[in-house]
């Protein structure tokens, strides 16, 4: 299958500093992990894919269309790092509102509440939930309408290990159903859970391959060592 996301020569500047300086990459189906330290440009890259980032050069094509174009707004789900939901509404009210905006039925709301395991909290105000629960509400909003591409910015940060495992299982279920996922993380141990990896540092893509191939190329046993070795071997 052709690339779901194609980025060519993407440049994003903030002030005089180039956050992304000519990034090229292709994201295919399955779960692609975008890994790198905080501040390396992961969020900026993801925002460019969703089409909410002002870009200064290059092109981003998503599902064959320019990123952010109107027909894509139904087909791409996006979760920001901060849970972008209304604290003064309940879980159900939040989802019902966003479902109305997206034209998704009430059944769709029920399905996403189940898939993020918030069924028992659905009548609770979002402001009263824990941080992990709030970010799952935010994830549920992105799942509305079964988007073909999901862009998830650090969706598992601060979650307990059991929940983290459950969410990764959910991501793979969604991928099995045909969705492509771009998931960022600054925790290298999540790398093993991805089908493919993008290693990123200082606005550059260092490596793009399966976790196994990246480790093999560097002759190491874990992705973290591979990351270090790639960084240190560069001029």
């Amino acid at each position: 299958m052709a690339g779901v996301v194609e980025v060519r020569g993407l440049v994003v500047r903030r002030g005089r500093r180039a956050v992304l300086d000519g990034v090229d990459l292709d994201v295919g189906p399955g779960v692609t992990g975008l890994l790198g330290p905080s501040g390396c440009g992961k969020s900026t890259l993801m925002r460019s894919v969703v089409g909410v980032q002002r870009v200064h050069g290059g092109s981003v094509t998503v599902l064959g269309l320019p990123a952010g174009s109107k027909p894509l707004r139904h087909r791409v789900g996006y979760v920001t790092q901060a849970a972008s939901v209304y604290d003064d509404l309940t879980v159900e009210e939040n989802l019902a509102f966003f479902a109305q905006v997206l034209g998704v039925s009430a059944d769709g709301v029920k399905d996403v509440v189940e898939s993020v395991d918030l069924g028992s909290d659905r009548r609770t105000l979002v402001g009263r939930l824990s941080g992990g629960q709030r970010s799952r509400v935010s994830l549920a909003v992105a799942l509305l309408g079964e988007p073909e591409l999901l862009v998830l910015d650090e969706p598992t940060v601060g979650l307990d290990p059991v929940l983290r495992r459950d969410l990764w299982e959910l991501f793979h279920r969604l991928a099995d159903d045909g969705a492509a996922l771009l998931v960022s993380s600054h925790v290298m141990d999540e790398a093993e859970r991805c089908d493919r990896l993008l290693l990123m540092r200082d606005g550059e893509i260092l490596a793009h391959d399966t976790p196994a191939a990246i480790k093999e190329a560097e002759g190491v046993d874990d992705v973290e060592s591979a990351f270090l070795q790639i960084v240190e071997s560069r001029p």
Partner: protein
Amino acid sequence: MVAVAARVLLQMVRDWRTLLLIMVVPCALMALLWWVYRDAGGAMFDRIGPDLLAIFPFMTMFLVASVTTLHERASGTLERLLAMPMGRLDFLLGYGLAFCVLSAVQSALSVATTVGLLGLDFSGPLPLVIVIAIIDAAMGAALGLFVSAFASTEFQAVQFMPAVVVPQILLCGLLTSRDALPGFLHGVSDVLPLTYAVDAMKRVSTSTAQGHVWLDMLVIAAYALALLALGAATLRRRTP
């Protein structure tokens, strides 16, 4: 648009303290004003009362609108909505609609208090007074929405009130008749939207002729739409 309006109203109902303040404070202030002028005879209250019925909805909706949209910008929900199939004008009109509903209730309450309890006389029809208040409130909300684009914190948003609202109150004809203003200030007050709301209220209170009142309302509505359009221009899908 209706989805946004329904959501904003639901959030307002949840925040019952703010809701109570919006509804009760204008009535209480009108009562206070009546008390202040009680011993001076009714003429002063009859002169100033209608002006305040135009100023209160404008002021409250300006504040509520600028703070709530700022909150929406800061929390990331605006970015999320704009990444969805949500038109910018749809979003703003939804907010506008919600604030119109709020201001309808608010002004019905304050008109009922002022006319029913405090004995303010209106020569014109009372429903017209409420319609003026609604259009006036919508204009205040539109101004608040627009101004919120220039504030990055709630503190700043609140500080826009003395900067943007108070000059309009000083020049609208509340303190002295506009004819008594120095020429330049008279010219300034001619382009400030609140002037037309206060003028409309004054006319309904003193005369039964409505032609000029409708003209005033047209001007206020035009300002509201122009400010909404400016507000839409500040809602950018792509941000730095």
